[in-house]
């Protein structure tokens, strides 16, 4: 293969240039691409090469004279987001597969790319084809992705949002309990009421005082030498009665 050093040389990016036509298609999100502002432009960037093209009347970005390289394509638009693309432009001469000579090749490939991922991590390929009737003009589409929304609306006062607040719900429930309980008690028939009061007396909540004798221990009375269980008992008897009254 005496040709190989030469072919390796030829494979180097030549100073030839490619014409790219990147169009903005009409999508449900952006039905009229002609409504995009005139400041919309696209940039093709790689190390030490930087191209910029404004959006033309035919809703396309025209990059003339793009030299070979692997570019990052960004579309800057004031009203819509566009996904970034990786655009590889190869142009030059390539050794034929059978080694019989060199081919003049020109190819453009485009993929989705992800910021924050390595450059080799390519996304979905974008269909690139030569524009009809034009030799050496490569075209593909970049659809608009998201509409840019610059503002936030102030959350206005609404009574419903107030009611959804759990604090308000708890407060409302306890209000009902406090105000509604006496009515329920009043409307209960006397037998049931008595039964209810009986149950309350024996319930551990109200009988909790007896459960822990230390709690009801009266040190003053004990020091005074009058550990009268009877008075204590009496006091305990009175307590539920009082409670019943306050209810």
């Amino acid at each position, binding site marked *: 293969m005496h040709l190989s050093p030469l072919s390796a040389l030829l494979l180097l990016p030549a100073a030839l240039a490619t014409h790219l036509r990147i169009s903005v298609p009409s999508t449900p999100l952006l039905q009229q691409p002609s409504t995009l502002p005139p400041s919309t432009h696209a940039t093709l960037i790689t190390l030490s090469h930087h191209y910029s093209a404004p959006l033309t009347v035919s809703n396309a970005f025209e990059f003339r004279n793009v030299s070979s390289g692997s570019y990052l394509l*960004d579309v800057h638009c004031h009203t819509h987001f566009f996904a970034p693309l990786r655009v590889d432009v190869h142009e030059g001469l390539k050794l034929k597969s059978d080694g019989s000579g060199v081919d003049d090749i020109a190819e453009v490939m485009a993929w989705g790319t992800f910021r924050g991922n390595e450059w080799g991590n390519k996304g979905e390929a974008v269909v690139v084809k030569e524009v009809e009737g034009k030799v050496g003009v490569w075209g593909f589409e970049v659809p608009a992705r998201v509409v840019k929304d610059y503002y936030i609306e102030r959350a206005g006062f609404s009574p419903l949002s107030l009611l959804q607040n759990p604090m308000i719900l708890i407060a409302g429930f306890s209000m009902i309990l406090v105000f509604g309980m006496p009515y329920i008690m009043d409307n209960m028939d006397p037998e049931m009421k008595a039964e209810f009061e009986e149950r309350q007396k024996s319930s551990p909540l109200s009988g909790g005082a007896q459960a822990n004798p230390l709690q009801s221990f009266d040190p003053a009375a004990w020091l005074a030498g009058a550990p009268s269980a009877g008075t204590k008992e009496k006091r305990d008897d009175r307590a539920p009665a009082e409670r019943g009254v306050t209810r």
Partner: protein
Amino acid sequence: MRLPITVLTLALSLLPSSHAIFADEAYSVDYQHELLGLPQPQTTFFHRPRKDDKATLLYTLSDLGVLGAVHPGTGKVVWRQLLAGEAGEYNASSKGFLRPVEGESTVVSAVGGRVDSWDAMSGRERWGNLFAGTIKDLEVMETTSGDVKDILALYDEDGKGVLRLLKGESGNVKWEYHGEITDVPLQVSTNVEKIFVIALHGTTGAYNLKITELDPVTGKQISEHTLRSLSDVHSPEDVLLVGANSAAPIVAWTDKDFKNLKVNILGRSASITSLPLAEADGPITKVEIHAPHLIQSLPHFLVHSHSATSNRADVYHINPASGTIAKEYELPKLSGKGAISVSSQAANVYFTRLTEDECIVVSSASHGILGRWPMRFTGKDGALLHGASEVVQRTGDTYAVRSAVLTSNDDWLLIRNGAVDWTRPEGLSGAVAAAWAEIPESENLAKTLEAEAHSNPLSAYIHRVNRHAHDLQYLPAYLQALPKRLLTSIIGSGTASQSGVLARDSFGFNKLVIVATVRGRVYGLNAGNQGFVLWSSKAFDIPSNEKWDVKGIWVEQSKGIATIKGSKGESVTVHVVTGNVLETVAPGSDFIQSTVVVETPSGALFLPISLDGNLDEVPVDQAPKDNLVVQGKDGEIKGLKFDTKGPGASPVVLWTFQSGPGEKILNVVSRPPHDPVASIGKVLGDRTVLYKYLNPNVVLVTAVSEESSYVAFYLIDSVSGDVLYSVTHEGVDIQQPITSVLTENWLAYSLWSDILVTEATLPGSKGYQIIVSELFESAVPNDRGPLGPTVNSSSIEPSDIPNAEPALPYVISQTFLIPEAISHMSVSQTRQGITTRQLVCTLAGSNAIVGIPRHILDARRPVGRAPTPAEMEEGLIQYHPVIEFDPKMALTHKREVIGIKDVIATPAVLESTSLLFAYGIDVFGTRVAPSAAFDILGKSFNRLSLVATVLALWIGVFVLAPMTKRKQINERWATQ
């Protein structure tokens, strides 16, 4: 394709709402002057964007390279395109061209090597093409058929004239013509049948005009001849006019002392007609020629001659049949400066003459005045320089005229029938420096109170009673205004006072901005009143091909004056409220690299620093107290201290920092002068504290290497010269903007980084990055590092051990990927520094300014895992490598700001709020509240509902009180 959107939504969901702009606050808290730059005489015209519609728009290509369409009725910008490249500066030598294509919705522009065709209505590009060389002239090739008109572009390619005919529909080259290498290409002209290339032929300083005739179809040379002009034409500027697209295009120049005008009708012969120029009040200083640019217009032209005090004009007719030129009539001499503009309607040619007293319209055919209107000027508009006019024939013999005129005050006016319709402050564009200024307080009350305090009690008491009695006269007016004040405070019509009186407000939003522009003008803007231009004054006359290089503005708040220093040592002092120029120092021979405000024993001083970084000896009482960091001749950085031991204070070089071999120092940033820190530590989730490294004497140096395309950042202690921290990034495109900022205990910079071919093992990503580094005293919480126990510390002797290493900060860095280039960075400032700072980034690519919240740029965000509850308590969110510039971050929201060079911040009185002002081509200002407006009631506060609630409660009490009383009485007295 799903990932970007999910990433996007993730980024959106991360963003708390407090950083966005409320829909009801947009356009009320922020303001913008949408500017174009000064319109140029040859590139400003009225043109119909729709063929079958009579409405016209006003098009201009300004001196700053902005192409724009302005609505002539309102003065609002319809569309703009910045033709000067994003990176490339537009200078006056790269002259731009703009031509309308008659009968088509197209305007064609050419700047540098680019030719673009634009849709006149929408501002979208039709086509663009780039060629080698620089553009010298641009003309539209008129056709007799109805095809799209082709474009002629004359280039200067390595000193050789190259004429290209570009296809009107695609911009592709139809043919090229190469001129001779010895000639200087000047202009191109056409009369449909032939194309004329006019070049200067001869040696530098004395030229003959060489006319080459070309065939428009093939581009082949038909003939060429030379016009003898050796003694008159010395430079391309000496040729006054080369008419194009008229039935008889001419080339004209004057002799040296403006005695005669020499005219040659192109395509006729080499004969030169000499027309005498009549003097009017002294020698003629300037001659202008106005001729129509339409092929169907009558071949008439007007010669406008100016002298120092007056101006007059002559109208000439060309006879196309015989090739003779005859004077038809003249417009009489009028004192002062005046502007004449030409407009044509079919065959009719109208000349509009605007002077300070009146506006007249004449037809080129006869001297009868078609319309005359008195000028209604406010008197401050200045002299009229040049304009573009549109004459409309109404019914019968009545005419209407509107002219867009540039004045000597750099304002662009639209004068309709003598009355000013609108004024655009175009001189405000091209701002190079700006500074905030407080509105000087009226100090009368303070003075009286002080006087009372120092006099004896009795007289002070009498004085006070008198003063209060005197104040009584304002009581009725106060009482009258009271209901209105109450009403406005209930309805909440806004916080800033919109009355014409310039006064400080309690929130500190009313401030002034002093702006200096490239054209030597100084402006005063009221930031509290939508950036209203309060005054403008001419500081220096800057030639049109130069720029005023302002090195610094120093505002003395106590005196209410601002001093502006330029690079040639010139300076001007203006009053901040009135704009009166108090003092001017003419440019000297000492060039300065920068200026600095220093504290000296005798007060603050505005110190210029010469190009080589050396400072002169100064008296001891004027010696700066602090250390200075200057850049030397060879780009090295020096730390200076003034030695006050001798009779005079002389600067002593403490240290010198030389960047690595092949490195070039790009810039040096220090902490902002107003940079208060509210908390010296960062409280972590477990109640321990990471102490911030808060050294006021640090500078961040950016150095780049062009050969190896890397960038290095050095954090240097400005007292000792020690490098505290350094970092290098490889594979950086140094043609892309590299910006940095240093504040509090953190620094941030942005750059464009590529994957490296050599480092195939490391996965890389291509794109713009922003890197944030936070400096702490120690890696361990609750530890203050080596400086911990000491009360005082010195950068030079960091510890008791001799020659010890300096105490290095513990640095945490994090890199984020951003979608586009940041061309400038600055940081919001608040009064106490309690509010978190916001990084304000200018995005030249999308004509916007974004504010990135600090918590997104936190270097301590946990990587690769969800934050622990303790970290969540700190407000840390999981690291995500990409920061999408969410539109809600955009401080400029829907506005498009172009050419922003710098953003300056100042604190308001309210702690939550920082005022921002951005300048460049456009001027933009806003208020930001990075931690939400916690100390002011926003527009969401509904005063009306508050008042309604109070009223309802009040009514309730009044209704219920008698009822309760009755019930109580009944309870006691009523019997069952």
